[in-house]
């Protein structure tokens, strides 16, 4: 088991390294590093000085080494706009994005599993078919448009929910969170729902497929033959089997959810790192962009690793095999 974890860790480190190479090439080979790393407002002399200071006159491999060395120390450059370390800027915005993404994932579980279970247990009922038809929209509707419609209906027409911002926040562990206040929660509801739409559809379909696959299995029939209540058969026996693939997929989708928060944050003016990256791209604040990309790649790889670990915890078959 430990050797297996160790192997996966080494693998993860290699992927991170590969991604740093890609980002480095993107910045230094495809793009013009002088333009990317030096403020566009700088004059000729300043530029020349910066080129030497940044080591841009050195061979590429040396530059990469320096980039990596700095990155390891958490130094990914300074924002032109805020004149602050890019990584710190990202880190400040990260809680807002994280709470949005986590809430979205929770929503997709809370809504997707019951709906999918219903559609799976009653595949031919009107409601079951409607749920499936509806899930197609979750996949194909452009999420920014759905966000606009949510605002139009619930904020503008009905006036039930606030349309933008994080609302009131409260401090926990020195970080501001919206989910701790009523007002913050009200602000978070629409963006979280919007962000979770695709995931709801995904979880729903997985759950339905799992239910349809598992219900005819012998073990379900045997559980019923033991005299268990239908509730226990479905929610313990069947669910336990469905949960494993769902957890895996949700885990893997978490990275995408964080990435897609870019869109939702823009629609709802949610001050997370997605909003920051769009603003940064618009003003060409490239150190922030690089920091964001490295951050999200790192996040992705960490999540994949965690999901793999979780998978072995959840599924006794995998767990015992890997132990041997």
């Amino acid at each position: 088991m430990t050797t297996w974890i160790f192997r996966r860790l080494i693998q993860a480190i290699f992927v991170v390294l590969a991604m740093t190479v890609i980002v480095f090439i993107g910045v230094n080979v495809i793009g013009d590093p002088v333009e990317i790393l030096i403020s566009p407002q700088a004059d000729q002399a300043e530029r020349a000085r910066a080129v030497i200071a940044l080591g841009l006159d050195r061979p590429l491999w040396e530059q990469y080494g320096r980039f990596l060395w700095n990155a390891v120390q958490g130094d990914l450059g300074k924002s032109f706009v805020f004149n602050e370390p890019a990584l710190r800027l990202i880190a400040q915005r990260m809680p807002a994005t994280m709470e949005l993404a986590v809430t979205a994932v929770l929503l997709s579980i809370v809504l997707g599993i019951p709906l999918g279970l219903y559609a799976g247990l009653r595949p031919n009922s009107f409601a079951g078919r409607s749920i499936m038809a509806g899930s197609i929209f979750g996949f194909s509707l452009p999420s920014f448009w759905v966000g606009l419609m949510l605002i139009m209906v619930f904020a503008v027409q009905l006036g039930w929910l606030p349309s933008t911002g994080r609302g009131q926040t409260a401090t926990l562990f020195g970080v501001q969170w919206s989910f701790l206040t009523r007002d913050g929660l009200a602000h978070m509801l629409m963006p979280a729902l919007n962000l979770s739409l695709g995931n709801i559809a995904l979880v729903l379909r997985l759950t339905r497929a799992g239910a349809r696959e598992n219900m005819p299995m012998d073990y379900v029939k045997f559980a019923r033959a033991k005299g268990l209540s239908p509730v226990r058969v479905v929610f313990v026996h069947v669910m336990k089997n469905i949960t494993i693939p769902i957890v895996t997929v949700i885990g893997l989708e978490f990275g995408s959810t964080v990435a897609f928060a870019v869109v939702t944050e823009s629609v709802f003016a949610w001050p997370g790192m997605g909003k920051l990256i769009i603003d940064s791209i618009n003003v060409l604040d490239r150190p922030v962009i690089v920091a964001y990309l490295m951050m999200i790649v790192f996040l992705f790889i960490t999540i994949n690793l965690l999901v793999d670990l979780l998978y072995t915890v959840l599924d006794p078959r995998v767990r015992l095999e890997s132990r041997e």
Partner: protein
Amino acid sequence: MSHTLTVEGLATHFHTRAGVVKAVDGVSFHVDRGEVLGLVGESGSGKTVTGFSLIGLVEPPGRIAAGRILFHGQDITALPEEELRQLRGNRIAMIFQDPMMTLNPVLRIDTQMMETVHAHAKVSNAEARARSRDALGMVGIPSPEERLSAYPHQFSGGMRQRVAIAIALLHRPELIIADEPTTALDVTIQAQILAEVQKLAREHGTALIWITHDLSVVAGLADRIAVMYAGRIVETGAVVDVLDAPLHPYTAGLIGSVPSRNKRGTRLRQIPGMTPQLINLPAGCAFRTRCASATAECEADPPETFPAFGRAVRCFHQQAEAS
């Protein structure tokens, strides 16, 4: 005195898009306390569906179309689902064919056993666990206490079937339906389990319906035998009587196809042809396409006749007594 179980004219049909599958079509039999009934027939003859019908586990598109199932004289086809549930696993238990599939792969054995205890008895967790452990011990699983916290995939097929049997025994049921529980196992393990179940059934006075396609299994185990073909029971009687002197051509064919010592050197006779499709089965004796004795008469449904005490046959041209 009423039988433990009496089945009268049971018909279970599946309404599929292609047509109505009459998987069970007018089946009658009974079992008594401490008795073993062998339900024999080729694969696809409706044995499993019969078993599921008895515990009310026929699922759509199937349903019980006709007949009565009397458990201690009470018709359980009319029972509401909750009362049926209280019978299942408690007073009537079932063991399935494929032990690799019957246990939930992601739940521990103790979970799967204790939940069965809790489903029918208000007892503490400790008590439920103790009962589960005892049941495991009873079916010959070594160090049951440790095995309780294992997962199904840590057991061999034979051991898993023992666990399933232990689960069936948890509430000392009055009736056990065993659906080919040894078919998927090695011959030696098959023999052990047969002996084990027979002993337990005798000790507890349980009525046992043993479903199999293998006459030789039934020969050593059952008291009486019911031969099923295409959803109907074509012959019943005491095991010795039926095996010594089969009256139905199909039974005779089955016996002829079993290898045995005293027939060594002679050719095994296979029954020609295949089990018929149960969809849109034409009227008349379903066996007539494969039957050597068939005549024009057989295009009508053969009536049930009772040629001797405790025997029943459905055939126009019963085999000569001394075949």
